[in-house]
């Protein structure tokens, strides 16, 4: 399977609005190596989702360039699987039908795609729900379907835009475990946007921290924890050390405040 490195160079994004221009991103440089899992951590509104959409070629940057593999991204990237915060399942399709949407639009071989979809659904514990209606599933199950949809076509880049942001803490832990397991099977390049420190540290090889608007990358740390990571590991000394480090950085940025300065 081809696998791609991602390079964002001097990305800037300005949104025009009634109250004047808003600088969402300012001079973002980021390189993600092949098969690396990078988490982008930042407060709400720091432009991290915008950065992900720019990476996917879905929103054009105001300045700067995106390169995936050796190709400059100027139109929507298609060698990609995206998971959004909302599951975006179509109610008029069954569970497996939603996963196969990816294959249908890409005109992949139906039989092969179906086998792959079934295998993926089984992998995330949805065996037996293939022909269920979307509205019969819980929030966590729906997001699992969305993940299968992002993976069914063997893309080389996985973009995750706060995929578990709307889920409860328990479901979220389970999803983190599931995602790690799925990602580990064929290790594609992955970029995860999140505002959960624990989630970023649990999943990523590297955690990148962004500042509040205008979004800039202010910290880049390599997470040297063995894989597969376990939930228990989150209580370990190393994990706590990383957590403290991230929190310190966030406090320094003014994202987190211990005392009330208002």
């Amino acid at each position, binding site marked *: 399977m081809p696998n791609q490195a991602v390079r964002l160079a001097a990305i800037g994004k300005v949104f025009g609005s009634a109250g004047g221009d808003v600088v969402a991103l300012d001079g973002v440089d980021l390189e993600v190596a092949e098969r690396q899992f990078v988490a982008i951590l930042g407060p709400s509104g720091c432009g991290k989702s915008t950065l992900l*959409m720019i990476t*996917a070629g*879905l929103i054009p940057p105001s300045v700067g360039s995106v390169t995936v593999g050796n190709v400059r991204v100027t139109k*929507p*990237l*298609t060698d*990609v*699987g*995206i998971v*959004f915060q*909302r599951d*975006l399942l*179509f*109610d*008029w*399709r069954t569970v497996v039908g939603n996963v196969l*949407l*990816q294959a*249908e*639009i*890409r005109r992949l071989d139906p039989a092969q795609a179906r086998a792959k979809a079934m295998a993926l659904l089984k992998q995330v514990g949805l065996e037996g729900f293939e022909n269920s*209606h979307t*509205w019969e599933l819980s929030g966590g199950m729906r997001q699992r379907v969305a993940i299968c949809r992002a993976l069914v*076509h063997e893309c080389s880049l996985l973009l995750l835009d706060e995929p578990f942001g709307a889920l409860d803490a328990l479901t979220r832990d389970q999803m983190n475990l599931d995602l790690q397991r799925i990602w580990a099977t064929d290790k594609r390049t992955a970029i995860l946007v999140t505002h959960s420190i624990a989630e970023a540290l649990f999943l990523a090889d590297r955690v990148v921290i962004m500042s509040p608007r205008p979004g800039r990358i202010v910290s880049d740390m390599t997470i040297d924890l063995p894989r597969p990571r376990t939930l228990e590991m989150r209580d370990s000394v190393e994990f706590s050390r990383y957590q403290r480090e991230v929190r310190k950085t966030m406090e320094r940025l003014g994202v987190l405040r211990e005392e009330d300065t208002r």
Partner: protein
Amino acid sequence: MKASLLRLAAPAAIFVVGMAGWQCLTAFGFVAPYLLPAPSQVLRRMAAVHTLLLAHSMVTGLEILLGFVVAVVVGVLLAAAVVYIRPFEAAFYPWIIATQAIPKVALGPLFIVWLGLGLPPKVVIGALIAFFPILIDTVVGLKSIDRESIFLLQSMGARRWAIFRYAQLPTALPNLFAGMKVAITLATVGAIVGEFVGANEGLGYVLLFANGTVDTTLLFGALVMLSLLAVVFYLVVCLFEAVFIRWHVSRRGDVARVTM
């Protein structure tokens, strides 16, 4: 099971009581039969002239159907143009809405002059009255898709047509059907208005004829046929809706019960 029985039995009971009341009203001489004939009288008359009523019903039925079909085609095409072609929306949409202020019934005589006494003016009047709710509802439906769903499809390599087919059209279907339900009743109004203005066949013509000869029994017979036509057409639209948007929130039994 019990609930569905109630759904059939309750309206049926209302019908029986209503008919019985009407029958008594006339049978005991409260109202003169030439003003309000008894249901039994109407039924006997309908049986006697059933070939005539059926023939005229076929004429009106065809007018309604064609008016409706033209309204759907024109309404959906205009909606697509409004949604996808920005200059078209800017230039024409205000005018399309402005023309709705014209009472289209008043245009009837003009279409009779232009198109004669036959089928075409009725179809045009019906379509003209009926396309508007379809246009408005379809525009709303096509615009109801969110940006992220489009992003998702674009990441799969979908272009405009695929986005329309896989996401926008299904999203718009519930609205389209809502518009069609209104449109089918309006197409009936259009056909009758067209026949009132000038025709030599159809249920509207029968109505006017019966009116002229103060033949209220025939008048009621034509009204019954017209109501049956309208109800059958409406049910057919509902049937299509049930088949095409089974997945929609409004059609899931559990939810519908709560909201009704």
